[in-house]
């Protein structure tokens, strides 16, 4: 017995124990989105091929890959926004909390209330800051002014923009800077109290300072939400995400924990991409 014990070096024991810890941690985080063999066509164009991906609760999942590889398409499939393009056809399964999102009984409006989205370009409505935030709750039937006031403040605080706008809530949202507009859009998304937030290159139109603010915000938000973020910025992916999926030509080349993807990727193409050798 003792002999067997010593046969395994101390370091190896430690490493295995660490892996065990990681495994259990992994098990704790529930899967919110379970994608199986997803294929998607825009007319004749095969944009997503056999995608298999799990998105986990309370984690940031980054999607990286060269332009045109299908990142936005995949993201928009998760809340079925992609269906706004009439030529789109999909096969395969996506389960949201165990229920197929393509099921006939599922209403897209309900799905989109639970799965919020922040777009690449800040896209506030041409309304006041207040009205931008209150829009979501209002369309879901909340009319009480006091409740709305509360939601507006809570959401703006949640997106760390409250202090900058609290004195101008009834001014036009277009008067805000690009970075503020993007955080306003995040706040607008928080106002419908989703479970998952999809972000498509949320910082690509922002300066470094606003970018850091949004990143900080994302780190804060993942305590309560599952976040999926598309980004072209490798540092950003490694800074804020727990898992990273590398897309190439509509396929998932590699999907793993972010530190694995960035430190010891198994696929040569992943390594080339994150080191800036192509894409």
């Amino acid at each position: 017995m003792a002999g067997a014990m010593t046969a395994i070096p101390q370091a190896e024991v430690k490493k295995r124990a660490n892996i065990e810890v990681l495994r259990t941690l992994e098990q704790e985080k529930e899967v919110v989105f379970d994608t199986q063999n997803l294929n998607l066509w825009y007319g004749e164009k095969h944009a997503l091929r056999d995608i298999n991906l799990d998105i986990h609760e309370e984690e940031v999942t980054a999607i990286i890959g060269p332009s045109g590889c299908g990142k936005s398409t995949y993201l928009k499939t998760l809340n079925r926004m992609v269906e706004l393009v009439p030529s789109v056809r999909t096969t395969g399964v996506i389960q949201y909390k165990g229920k197929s999102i393509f099921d006939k009984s599922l209403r897209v409006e309900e799905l989109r209330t639970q799965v919020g989205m922040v777009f690449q370009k800040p896209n506030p409505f041409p309304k006041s800051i207040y009205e931008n935030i209150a829009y979501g709750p209002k369309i879901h039937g909340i009319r009480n002014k006091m409740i709305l006031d509360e939601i507006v403040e809570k959401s703006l605080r949640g997106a760390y923009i409250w202090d900058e706008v609290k004195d101008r809530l009834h001014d036009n949202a277009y008067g805000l800077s690009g970075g503020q507009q993007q955080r306003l859009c995040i706040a607008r998304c928080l106002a419908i109290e989703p479970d998952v937030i999809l972000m498509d290159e949320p910082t690509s139109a922002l300066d470094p300072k606003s970018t850091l603010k949004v990143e900080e915000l994302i780190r804060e938000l993942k305590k309560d939400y599952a976040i999926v973020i598309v980004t072209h910025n490798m540092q950003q992916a490694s800074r804020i995400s727990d898992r990273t999926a590398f897309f190439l030509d509509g396929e998932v080349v590699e999907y793993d924990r972010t530190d694995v993807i960035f430190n010891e990727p198994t696929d040569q193409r992943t390594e080339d991409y994150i080191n800036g050798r192509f894409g």
Partner: protein
Amino acid sequence: MKYVDAVQVQKRMNFRLIVNTIAKIIFFLSTVFGLVVLGILIYRVFSDGIGWINMDFLTGKLSTDPEKAGILGAILGTLWLMVVVAPVTMFFGVGTAIYLELYAKKGKLRSFIQTNIANLAGVPSIVYGILGMTVFVRALDMGNIVLAGGLTMSLLILPITIVASQEAIRAVPNHLGEASYGLGATKWQTIKNIILPAALPGILTGAILSLSRAIGETAPLVVIGIPALLIPFPGSIFDKFTVLPMQIYYWTLDSSLVEEYAYLASATIIILLLVLLLLNTTAIIIRNKFQKRY
């Protein structure tokens, strides 16, 4: 060697600047042309007609005697006509535009409808008069009342309103609608709260232009059979009526018999222009009110 050679650039610069100036002059002249013609028209109309405008003219009944003739009936007729035309055109025009732009599947049927609407905009107005006569006056047995005339006019300006509204809806950036759908809004909520308000200024601009057309149009009403003279003032959309441009038409027609009729026609044109101005200003104020929200 540089492709953009500084010497060559210098040489061509004079020429380029001259062309630049010529372009400006051409566009200025085309504006002047319109303004001059309009100026002459307005000058003639005003010098002929302004002397004939007084309270009696504005509030009087129609009469064969030029000294007694008034046009209150025609003013009221025009206003009542608008009471029918404006809402009917806006409802069906904007409704059709919304359907075509936001609901109808892009395909053969849609482009067939689209082409036909564009063609209808070019059909002579008298054809609409014949249609109105057949359908509203005869088949539905309305008689030549405001409602029948208004519906006919609405048909006439519907194609323009539809096309203009479609343009306005198409000009609303996609990302606004997407933002709304992304929050779980239904299609109708998105249209009502986001797309229509953003398109409204453009829609109203189209509506203003087409309503102005309806105010000035005569041919369809001639076909429907608008009485030339002496009717009681219209008090609702179910009364018989005449309108300002019809009055101008009849007076101009008969000016070879009674010389003063020509002046009455000019005076009526002035009033018509004022009514147009009034309606357009109202519409523009409404439009600007909506534009300010952004």
